[in-house]
């Protein structure tokens, strides 16, 4: 397993370095950068820091910039993670290496772990870049509860991973990445409390936000990172995340396994 792990890690690292230039990296964090930048301009220059009366009670903070920047940060993070995990198999299919991969007796677990750790390395760089940028535009770091933030992120990543498995299944089903992934990402932008609390949305739509890991991830992250709350204070979000993982993980794994078989039959006879 470790051989496969190492091989996959090194292969993907080289692919990233050679085939996808810096533009790929910039393209990934760009949405977050723009969200941050334009929120800053709108807040300071257009509205002159004048906020809606209900914002404070919905968002549980009066600090609009920290609210949006932490939203942008986690949104970028989620999009990267969902893309890395869900596109793994379909990319192999497109690049013509899936058959070779399936034919070798290499460990599937090692492959996925290698793939993931390389992806996480890239996401780590993106995350740090976004944090630095956020600091520049008014994200507060003074209250960070490190232990709680680490715990929240760990639970959140597990939950996102499970959601990515389901997404990957859909991609193989439709044999498409562009429309499937972007429809999800655009929807997430609307219903996940990124630039505004979902309480502003009509009641009948809010449930879509509730089944997205990102909504709860952001909620908890804001509390522990910006407000410095303890893990007990965000337990409700944590329960949600664990609950969603319990649903998404088995559904996603089964779905992917079934799709893998279908794809094999369709493509390689």
């Amino acid at each position, binding site marked *: 397993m470790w051989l496969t792990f190492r091989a996959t890690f090194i292969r993907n690292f080289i692919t990233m370095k050679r085939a996808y*230039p810096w*533009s790929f990296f*910039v*393209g990934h964090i*760009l*949405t977050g950068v*723009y969200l941050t930048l*334009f929120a800053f*301009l*709108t*807040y300071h*220059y*257009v*509205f*002159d820091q*004048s*906020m*809606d*009366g209900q*914002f404070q009670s919905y*968002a549980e903070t009066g600090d*609009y910039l920290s*609210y949006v920047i932490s939203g942008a940060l986690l949104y970028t993070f989620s999009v990267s993670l969902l893309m890395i995990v869900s596109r793994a198999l379909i990319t192999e299919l497109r690049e013509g290496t899936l058959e070779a991969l399936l034919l070798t007796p290499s460990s599937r677990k090692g492959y996925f772990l290698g793939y993931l750790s390389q992806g996480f390395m890239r996401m780590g760089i993106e995350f740090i870049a976004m944090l630095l940028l956020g600091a520049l535009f008014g994200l507060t770091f003074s209250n960070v509860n490190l232990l709680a933030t680490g715990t929240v992120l760990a639970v959140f990543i597990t939950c996102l991973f499970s959601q990515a498995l389901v997404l990957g299944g859909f991609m193989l089903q*439709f044999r*498409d990445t562009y*429309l499937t992934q*972007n*429809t999800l990402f*655009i*929807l997430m*932008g*609307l219903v996940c409390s990124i*630039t*505004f*609390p979902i309480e*502003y*949305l009509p009641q009948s739509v809010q449930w879509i936000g509730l089944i997205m890991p990102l909504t709860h991830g952001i909620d908890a992250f804001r509390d522990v990172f910006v407000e410095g709350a303890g893990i007990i204070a965000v337990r409700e979000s944590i329960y949600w995340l664990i609950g969603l993982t319990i649903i998404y993980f088995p559904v996603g794994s089964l779905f992917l396994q079934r799709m893998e078989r279908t794809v094999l039959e369709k493509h390689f006879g």
Partner: protein
Amino acid sequence: MRWITGMWAEMVKSHQHNFHSKMIYFSLLIWPVLLFLTSYYSLKPFNLEATSPIAEFVDPDSIMLFLLTGFLGYIFFWSLVQSAWQTSYERQTGTLELIFLTPVSRLAFVYGRSAGNLFEAAWLFTVFSVLLLVALGGPQSIIWSALPIAFLILIISAVVWGGFLNVVFLFSRDASILFTILEEPMQFFAGVRLPVAAFPIWGKVIAVVFPLTFVLDIFRGLVIKGQHLSQLSTSLFILAGILIGLIFLTTLLMKLAEKHAKQSGNMVLF
């Protein structure tokens, strides 16, 4: 006449290429609608009462109307970014080379691409916008008689803009990054979501770079405010100037691109 045949052929080709599955409706209707709603709700945390600093430039009660017209213009321009982006497929699969071997006018090809994609990509959202406009403010909220001329201006500007983008894509395979970088600033600074008048002076300077700024100014003036063309003459003149400049640049770049291609190999490999 041959010019028109070339342009028409390219429009038909684009249509057949894009409409092979129903999934296309996601990017045509569902994405723009979701993005529009996101923009609308993103303004909600701000003070939108009569006391708001923005009330000086746009009536906060009609912000939905403002946004909707803004997005309509933006979708027209954006769909052309998509079409230009697809030119790179054309080059990867080698069909671009074939087109350049035929005696068809290069400009007809470029503008045909642009126009074809425009009509396909924008009509659904246009229908949605007009329906929503009527649902929100009643039929009297928009000046119906001004719609044809407003759309004509929008369409011509968008096609010229799209032709220019298509030519830029003839130069490099990796030009998509340029548009990823420029797309959102265009949305922000051209006044799609917020009135340009509310920006600080440097924001207004950036806004002048994008033709969409003037298109939106004219479109909103005609359709919502009920102004006459003569009242919008400054914007019209500037827009005309920019468009003529763009057409000139397109022609020039087209020649340069072909020369470059001839020198550096073929259309697929350069």
